[in-house]
């Protein structure tokens, strides 16, 4: 019961922030608190998938492969795809926030930074390990609070796959290194 109540209040809290973001009304939660919380969930899920699914089944036990072409190869989806499909699902449901996984050294050229904040943010988190980057940007006629968080090589699987990938511009990623960044955007009052 207690848990339920807690879940409910946090849900209400979350939805106030979310609905507040697109409007002019100010709310109790700062955008940064919000994006930080979102990132924690994303990072945790991403690590769990890489370690418990890819690392265990594909690398260690070799029960099943992980492949970009998972449908054709009857394989596991890659961690980055898992992340992107999630982001696409969210985008179908709401425009209250959006997120993506980018890198200065992307396997998929679509994951290169595009906006000025993305460029500055990715550079900053690569040069300052352990720190995040926050800023505001206007895209179209909407202003966003944009946060960039480091995406770190948490498992051997990350670096072995990227370093060997034919489209990867870098072949010397090391464990623990920043490989790219998670960019989260909230529309805010300009």
């Amino acid at each position, binding site marked *: 019961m207690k848990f339920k109540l807690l879940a409910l209040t946090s849900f209400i809290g979350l939805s106030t922030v979310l609905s507040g973001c697109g409007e002019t009304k100010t709310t109790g939660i700062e955008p940064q608190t919000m994006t930080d919380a979102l990132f924690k969930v994303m990072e945790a899920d991403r690590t769990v998938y890489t370690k418990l699914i890819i690392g265990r089944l594909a690398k260690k036990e070799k029960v099943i492969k992980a492949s*970009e*072409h998972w*449908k*054709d190869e009857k394989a596991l989806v890659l961690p980055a795809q898992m992340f992107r499909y999630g982001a*696409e699902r969210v*985008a*179908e449901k709401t*425009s209250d926030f*959006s997120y*993506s996984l980018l890198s200065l050294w992307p396997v998929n*050229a679509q994951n290169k930074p*595009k*906006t000025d904040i*993305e460029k500055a943010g990715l550079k900053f988190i690569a040069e300052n390990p352990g720190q995040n980057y926050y800023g505001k940007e206007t*895209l*179209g006629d*909407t202003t*966003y609070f944009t946060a960039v968080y480091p995406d770190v090589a948490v498992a051997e699987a990350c670096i072995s796959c990227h370093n060997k990938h*034919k489209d990867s511009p870098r072949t010397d990623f090391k464990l623990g290194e920043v490989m790219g960044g998670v*960019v989260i*955007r909230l*529309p805010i009052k300009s």
Partner: protein
Amino acid sequence: MMKLFNNIWTLWLLSTLLILGYLTYIFNVEEKGIFSPGKLTHGHHQIEMACSSCHTEPLGGGEVIQDACVNCHKEELKISDDSHPKSKFTDPRNISRVKELDARVCVTCHTEHRTKITKSMGVTIPEDFCVKCHSEIAEDRPSHKGMEFTSCASAGCHNYHDNRALYEDFLEKHIDEPHHLPEGKIKSVSSLEEITTSAGYPISKYPVKKLTGTDIELHPGIKKDALITEEWSITAHAQAGVSCNACHKVKDDKGVVNWVEKPSHDSCKTCHKSEVKGFLTGKHGMRLNQDLSAMTPAMSRISMKSTAHDKELTCSSCHSSHKFDVKHAAVDACLNCHNDQHSQSYKDSPHFLLWHKETSGQGDKNTGVSCATCHMPREEKELGDQTLILTEHNQNMNLRPNEKMLRSVCMNCHGLGFSINALADKKLIQNNFKGLPKVHNQSIDLVKQRLLKRGKPREGSP
């Protein structure tokens, strides 16, 4: 004076009523042509008079039409693993791309009623649209330097939506395949047992049990016909425990069960959901799907036999009513109507020779190539959590761009490179693949060059 005045008013009232009545009439029958702002494309001309199929609201803009597009084409886009889904363009980081090309809605590239500017695939924007986002491609792929942006999607290398058989790793996987695969064969349709035990099959109503003429029960007043009984008794229907009543007894709107002389696709749908859905989505059944009269060859924009002009297209047009001869449905049914050069050349083609061999008992099962083999291929269909192999009855599903046929059809028997070249050779298509492709597509060459540069030896190379 007053009388004259009254008369004028009566006349005005009468003519207004008449005009109103006429407008209401033409809006409610199939004669809406005068309202059409221009002819429709090949894809939609059959349903031109069903305005509300797309204009779901009288004053709807792009978004309303978008819902209509998605309503019919959603599944196709999903199956084809759309390379440019809407979600790519709703992401705020891509807003600058949306300004170049608003690919969030279909009508940006596929505007209807604009025959003068409509190109193949119903595209109504200039062919070099790829440049809007991919102008820097030569930097990532130096091999693409100097290539025309009009050629990205016209040379058989890339498609905007469906690249399932064209992506680099796929080309690499099938890099050195021969023209003919040694074990090439067409898939078999799932067995009676697999089909009747699949999700949604009305097994409790029609338990699988071989029936003969003596098992037939008819509606009161209907007499048994010896010829029909004989034709039916050798069909899969008789094997599967499906007799006359299963199709001919139909519930009407009030729930009363009547005997229907000519059952519609609704009866077939009871057991053949996937097939009927395909039929209704494709060019053969799309009019029925919009509650218009059945399609006839006379309405078609492609060459049809004059002897067939008034034939109506329903399930039984190809399958007949009781024999359900799939061999007939796979070739002769098509050629009874279709009269274009590709169809006319079929019986003179190597594919037909194989079909002739198989059907005359000289060739192995699933080695013949009929019209249906390519245009209504047997494909994996997901029903619940089961995968069945069923015939795709939407003949349009893999027709355009024709690279859609690579995986579902050609590559069952041919190597990828050979197939890409064949599909790019317009003359070869016209004569129904009699001879070797004279067109050479360079996709696989580029993959080979890139492999060499990478220094990774290919499997099988010295």
